[in-house]
């Protein structure tokens, strides 16, 4: 409900304002229904070519980051994991930049094949980065949260530097800027991005929700989950793949948007409940709503200048992370 309101309002706000009734009229007009509400041709073009793809992409990316957070937190059994902060996002960005470079070289950039290549490279690189972090942070059935955060920090810095190197060496505008990949932006989103993201994010979220009860049991510990009949090794791989898909898809569309994955699941847990199935679905909804609202603010706060979406989410999320750390201090020291 909140999501629908946010989407409609977001579609209307901008340099060219469009009222909710005008949006309804344009959409209904598009399928051949006449309505009493008048709208201009400019409004119609802006809505269908720019606003709708952008808002839908924002909602999908918000859902992807939030559920990627649920996946990673479930895997590491801590609310402190954000794939955008601990190397997976940076890995996906490097993969996406390399994928874009390859697409440019092959002459398929801005085509569907090119988009698939970029997204695939982002997912693959996110998985590789995730595997490195997991390898460093886990030992004999235990994951060490502090090690995960530190290893992720170092890996992230390394991968961002590598991305900057690739972008500098590539010398093509299609590759995007370091700021785009590290702070995120929805200003260049097109319809094809939305389609691709929807095809990937939807199923990944549903599979993650199905694994929910097993992630609940994993909260007891790896051997305890094993005693309950769960194949923990297999679950770890399944969740890691979903995590990489969600992170890679989100980054391929709009770069790294930090802290959504951290804030949204924490709010859902406190608000709706702990079981991972509920947290997954709730986070998808709230993540979508949250990022749609944040993007409206990003493009209207300093209008006509547009802020990077990551600037807003970080301004909100970093203090939130510190507050979470403060609350978890006792558990981390243990």
């Amino acid at each position, binding site marked *: 409900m909140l999501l629908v309101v946010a989407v409609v309002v977001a579609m209307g706000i901008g340099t060219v304002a469009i009222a909710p009734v005008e949006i309804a009229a344009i959409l209904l007009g598009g399928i051949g229904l006449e309505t009493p509400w008048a709208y201009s041709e400019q409004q119609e073009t802006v809505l269908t070519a720019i606003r709708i793809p952008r808002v839908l992409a924002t909602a999908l990316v918000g859902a992807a980051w939030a559920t990627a957070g649920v996946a990673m937190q479930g895997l590491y059994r801590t609310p402190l994991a954000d794939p955008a902060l601990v190397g997976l996002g940076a890995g996906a960005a490097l993969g996406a930049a390399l994928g874009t470079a390859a697409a440019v070289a092959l002459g398929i950039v801005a085509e569907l094949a090119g988009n698939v290549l970029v997204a695939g490279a982002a997912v693959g690189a996110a998985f590789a980065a995730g595997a490195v972090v997991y390898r460093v942070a886990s030992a004999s059935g235990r994951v060490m949260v502090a090690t995960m955060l530190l290893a992720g920090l170092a890996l992230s810095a390394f991968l961002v530097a590598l991305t900057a190197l690739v972008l500098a060496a590539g010398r093509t505008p299609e590759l995007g800027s370091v700021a785009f990949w590290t702070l995120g932006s929805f200003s260049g989103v097109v319809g094809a991005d939305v389609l691709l993201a929807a095809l990937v994010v939807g199923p990944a979220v549903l599979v993650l929700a199905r694994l929910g*009860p097993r992630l609940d049991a994993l909260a007891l510990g790896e*051997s*305890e989950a*094993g005693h*309950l*009949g769960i194949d923990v090794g297999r679950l770890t791989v399944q969740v890691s793949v979903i995590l990489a898909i969600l992170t890679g898809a989100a980054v391929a569309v709009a770069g790294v948007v930090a802290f959504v994955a951290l804030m949204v699941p924490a709010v859902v847990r*406190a608000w709706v409940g702990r079981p991972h199935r509920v947290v997954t679905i709730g986070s998808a909804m709230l993540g979508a709503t949250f990022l749609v609202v944040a993007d409206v603010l990003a493009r209207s706060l300093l209008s006509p200048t547009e802020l990077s979406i990551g600037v807003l989410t970080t301004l909100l999320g970093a203090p939130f992370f510190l507050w979470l750390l403060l609350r978890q201090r006792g558990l981390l020291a243990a």
Partner: protein
Amino acid sequence: MSFRADGVSVRIGSTTLLDDVSVEVRPGEVVAVAGPNGAGKSTLIGVLAGDRRPSPGAVMLAERAVAEWPRLELAHRRAVMSTDRTVAFSFTAEEVALMGRLPLHGGDPTEADRRVIGDLLAAVDCAHLAHRVFATLSTGERQRVSLARAIAQVSDVTGAIADARRHADARRHASDERYLLLDEPTSSLDPAHQHVAMRLLRNEANRGLGVLAVLHDLNLAAAYADRIVLMARGRIVASGSPAEVLRADLLASVFDIPMLVIPHPHLSHPLVIAEPRS
């Protein structure tokens, strides 16, 4: 019908944790494993649970090696209560206990499951804590909730089987032998709750469960166990009824402290008291 370890040994490098240990627990029995720190009791639980592979040696549940049981079927047959009491996220005590039913419901707990959990939480005197966050409970309270979770996995399965949504496998094996392995289930409990926990385990055994528990308190073992297995330095040094195993000379040499063993003034089992050296 039994759950047993046959001549199991566990070595890490040059350290021998278990040396040719054989134990057996049958349905309806409470077996207590006792011994000083480092005797290999927890390692034995790990081997029986299937967490550690012995070499050489075999662990057999219903005449089939534990390593060959499919995970889920094994989870229907035996539950494990370890000494780890950490649960991530703010799950409530009831939610944690309900996780014990996961092998039975696969993610959608039924009313029957909730009833079993409600009864068990009441049985361990935790009904009033059901909606509290598990991580905020005291050590002893968490231990009682964990006990309820472990029992829930293998107890009252028959009552729930009428439910058509039961896992097909759980239905098929409803009348089969089931076992409960516990590593120091009473270590953080006050005297009253130690007896609450042991009486509950005794009742579950009387209803057909096979219970094997590591216990440090020899008097609890004497009061509730059918047999006591006494371990020291990775080996079994004595095994038998409480009266057979709880002998002053044997206990003194195993625990390295003088032990007074006297008949309990008004119960039929021995009373054991460690005496300070003069």
